[in-house]
């Protein structure tokens, strides 16, 4: 018996490692199956109307929803402003594979999307609010638009990819917290505001656009890669870790110049980041890296690596053309 298809849905996946688009044919009755295959669809959350006040729901993560039926998911509580509502009051929910969640609509007032998630995938076809992916321990988040402050704050593992811009505190520690992100990867294809990687301990952050002031503030470890113009006071008070700059930042007397060389470990990063459409220069491209150590005002042993191209034309700085 053939399923009665209504229309094709083209879903654009923002993650560069996925095919750019694929067609899903959705049957009229979600439970319709062919005799030989089971059709499984990600759970779709379509915003019913624009959000007027902040929305929070820590349960909207794949690991929390994985053993729940669609009706149970629809009845889960959300906090819309001061009021507690149900998910179905805010979103139209369809689908049956809780390992993959897809959100549609302007979610700039949705705070904490993907917070503490540990597995699965979340895709946001729009922009997203604060604390996106904060404290996550695994899984993957992809955002088509921009995100607000505290993207991936204190995350322990996982991957976050943002096509647009990010606010303050990417991968950072919350105030009064001793460390920021401890592992994982954050890729921001647009610009980022201040304090990228504040107190980060480990992990990798890539900002393909401009980075605001105080990038790498109080860094304890990890790697920040900045491809375009960088604000002031880069690496202030950093103890350890690496900030890789493809455009020369303004350094001060608290960063001591060491040498020019070709660090082998950056070749590892260059190859690893290719899957995220991020290119780094390697020894094959000529040029060298200038190494600085600091922040010496705090006895820090962090390093600043600044690309010094051999040729006038340098194709590594700047964001990708989408």
């Amino acid at each position, binding site marked *: 018996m053939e399923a009665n298809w209504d229309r094709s849905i083209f879903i654009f996946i923002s993650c560069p490692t996925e095919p750019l688009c694929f067609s899903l044919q959705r049957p009229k009755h979600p439970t319709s199956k062919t005799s030989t295959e089971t059709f499984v669809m990600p759970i779709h959350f379509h915003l019913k109307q624009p959000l007027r006040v902040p929305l929070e729901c820590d349960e909207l993560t794949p690991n929390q929803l994985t053993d729940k039926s669609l009706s149970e998911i629809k009845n889960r509580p959300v906090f819309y402003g001061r009021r507690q509502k149900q998910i179905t009051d805010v979103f139209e929910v369809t689908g049956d594979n809780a390992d993959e969640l897809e959100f549609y609509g302007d979610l700039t007032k949705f705070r904490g999307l993907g917070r503490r998630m540990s597995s699965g995938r979340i895709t946001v076809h729009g922009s997203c609010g604060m604390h996106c992916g904060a404290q996550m321990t695994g899984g993957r988040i992809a955002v088509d638009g921009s995100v607000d402050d505290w993207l991936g704050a204190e995350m322990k593992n996982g991957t976050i990819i943002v096509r647009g811009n990010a606010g303050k505190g990417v991968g950072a520690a919350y105030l009064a917290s001793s460390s920021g992100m401890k592992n994982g*990867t954050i890729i921001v294809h647009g610009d980022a505001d201040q304090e990228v990687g504040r107190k980060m301990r480990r992990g*990798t952050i890539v900002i393909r656009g401009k980075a605001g002031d105080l990038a790498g503030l109080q860094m304890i470890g990890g790697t920040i890669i900045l491809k375009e113009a960088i604000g002031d006071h880069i690496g202030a008070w950093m103890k350890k870790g690496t900030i890789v700059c493809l455009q020369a930042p303004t350094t001060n007397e608290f960063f001591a110049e060491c040498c020019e060389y070709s660090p*082998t*470990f950056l070749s590892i990063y*260059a*190859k690893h980041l290719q899957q995220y459409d991020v290119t780094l220069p390697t020894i094959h491209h000529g040029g060298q890296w200038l190494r600085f150590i600091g922040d010496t005002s705090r006895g820090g042993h962090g*390093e600043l690596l600044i690309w010094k191209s051999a040729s006038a034309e340098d194709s590594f700085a700047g964001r990708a053309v989408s």
Partner: protein
Amino acid sequence: MSRSPIIDDTFAEAFPMMATRLIITAADETFVQTAATEFCGNASSVIGCNCEAAIEHFLTAEETIDGRPGVSILAFAFDQGSLQKAVSSRVGQNVLTCPTTACYSGLLPSESQKKIKVGALLRYFGDGYQFSKKLENRRFWRVPVMDGEFVCEDQFGIVKGVGGGNLILTAANQATAIQAARQAVTAINKLPDVILPFPGGIVRSGSKVGSKYPSLRASTNHLWCPTLKGECDSDLQPEEMTVYEIVIDGLSEAAVANAMKVGTDALSQHSGVIRITAGNYGGKLGPFHFHLHKLSN
């Protein structure tokens, strides 16, 4: 008139060993070859060396983790502790010292549950100036040296491998036997997950357990020495004047069995080979038995 060699109805007896794979990269193929050769030196047999090691195959820049030319090496030892000691010592003395090199684990976490410390031990050479970098679930140490940094992965995965698979060939003279042995070595060297740890992959001094001298653990396999045919109850036929052995170590029983099959096929195609056989201890010591007549299965 050419004839197929006799294949004895016997088996090779092999033993479990702990094994690891290392990837060494460098700025160019010359230093890759140099580092690999130095690492694999004095690594023919655990009878007298601290491990058995040899080059598995060379890698292009596209195949390595850092995009530079590289080589894959397999190393084997009796147990995890011995393997760790041998590998970390060899990397420290022969790879770290070689210009532009870096060293990584060749077994992914999904392929091995146990690990040995390599970079975790060598990092101390940095005298406190070393850096650690963690990328996803892999940690790398960056040790400052005079040409920049030596990068070495913190821990290397290990697996239970098989050591001591073997093929023995006989021929009417040395030149023919060498030619045939090299043919088999060339064929086996194309296979993944196996190495031939002896010089050129060929053993000329096959040994037996024990000796008339109490301090020696092994001595010449006198029953297979052609010059002693008249002095002992030789296992050689009158026309057999030269014997060579090919010892095979592999990451799995299947890999060794496949290598033995490929080697047997290569020897069978050489008209100068009189007999193909294998060495064993009556089946009482090693749990892995590779029967020559069953290799095609």
